[in-house]
């Protein structure tokens, strides 16, 4: 069967020992509409594609594979709609694979991403053992950022997450990561590794001929057979307003309802009566302010006597 993989990487696809660099893409609507009242999310399949971070991951994968003389596999899990995204990846020279996952969005969100990571690793395993997996550090659809860590666990690989820069350093990789307080950290990453990158890198443009050829190509599909059951420990409910726990409040002291309400609210006990100073001229405002400071004992004694 002619596949996108063969059509676009015929020069490297037959070389089994070249390192495999995998880019994980998530096909999702980038601008879903959220009803502010009911929190219902409406997705438009037409505008669905990968996020900027995912495309950045693919660009990193292409550059690193070129440096290692390796090959690139773009993988997306999901329904046949995800093939649109994969065809864009094929047009810039990646082999592609769609991992067929069943289950609705709600089931998906209730389960953790471990099952998804298992399915992706099993699918990638049919193509080869990856030397590097690059993911976007978040997606617009759910985007928990947990998938790269689960992938690293499944592959028994090193992980470096949330990178702003990823470069080849001989056989290893060098990544740069943000730290608190505006500092950066440079990390050396051994192979095999799973890295997630921020969306700073722009994907190269595909030629028109490549886009047209990829549009008709067949995308290979891997059907995951196990590990798709959602984690039953998590359950989704209806969105509801916040309802704090009930607390036992001591009955307020006081003989009359007014005394009790005053005690409850602290209307007289805990404050100076509110006053509005102004609108007034600057000199009067300063006088009022100094008087307030004096009254509160914030000024040294000699100042207050002036």
């Amino acid at each position, binding site marked *: 069967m002619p596949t996108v993989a063969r059509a676009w990487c015929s020069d490297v696809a037959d070389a089994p020992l070249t390192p495999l660099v995998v880019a994980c893409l998530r096909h999702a609507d980038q601008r879903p509409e959220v009803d502010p009242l009911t929190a219902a999310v409406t997705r438009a399949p037409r505008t669905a594609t990968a996020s900027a971070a995912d495309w950045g991951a693919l660009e990193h994968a292409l550059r690193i594979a070129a440096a290692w003389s390796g090959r690139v596999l773009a993988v997306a899990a999901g329904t046949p709609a995800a093939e649109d995204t994969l065809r864009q990846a094929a047009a810039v020279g990646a082999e592609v694979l769609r991992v067929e996952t069943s289950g609705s969005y709600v089931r998906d969100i209730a389960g953790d991403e471990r099952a998804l990571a298992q399915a992706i690793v099993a699918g990638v395993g049919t193509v080869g053992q990856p030397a590097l997996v690059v993911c976007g550090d978040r997606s617009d659809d759910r985007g928990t950022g947990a998938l790269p860590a689960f992938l690293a666990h499944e592959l028994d690989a090193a992980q470096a997450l949330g990178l702003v820069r990823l470069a080849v350093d001989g056989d290893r990789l060098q990544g740069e990561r943000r730290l608190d307080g505006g500092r950066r950290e440079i990390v050396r990453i051994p192979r095999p590794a799973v890295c997630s990158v921020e969306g700073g890198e722009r994907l190269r443009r595909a030629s028109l001929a490549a886009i047209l050829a990829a549009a008709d190509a067949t995308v290979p599909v891997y059907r995951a057979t196990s590990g798709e059951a959602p984690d039953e420990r998590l359950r989704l409910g209806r969105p509801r307003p916040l*309802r*704090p726990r009930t607390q036992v409040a001591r009955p307020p002291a006081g003989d009359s309802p007014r005394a009790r309400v*005053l005690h409850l609210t*602290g209307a007289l006990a805990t*404050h100076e009566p*509110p006053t*509005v100073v*102004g609108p007034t001229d600057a000199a009067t405002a300063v006088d009022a302010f100094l008087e307030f400071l004096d009254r509160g004992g914030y000024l040294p004694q000699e100042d207050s006597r002036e």
Partner: protein
Amino acid sequence: MNERWSQLSFEDRMATVEFRVGERAHITVDSDICRSCTTKDCVVACPANLFAPTADGGILFNYEECFECGTCYQVCNSEGAITWTYPDGGQGVVFRRG
């Protein structure tokens, strides 16, 4: 804000209810009487923060997000400063059961 309500932020407190605002103001405040009030208890006591002191010593009041708790009427000690009624049928605060 007032320390006494600090377990629940003001925004969260307001978000737990819905207001069906009626045409008629069910609470009115006579700012002329408030001018001679020295304590302004209502400003601190109202959980919905509906009383605002003005520069001339009076009170600016807005009835639209009122919980109808009656606190302002209870704490105010000035005869005639607050006229308090419930909103007309079908209007006013709607408490949810969470």
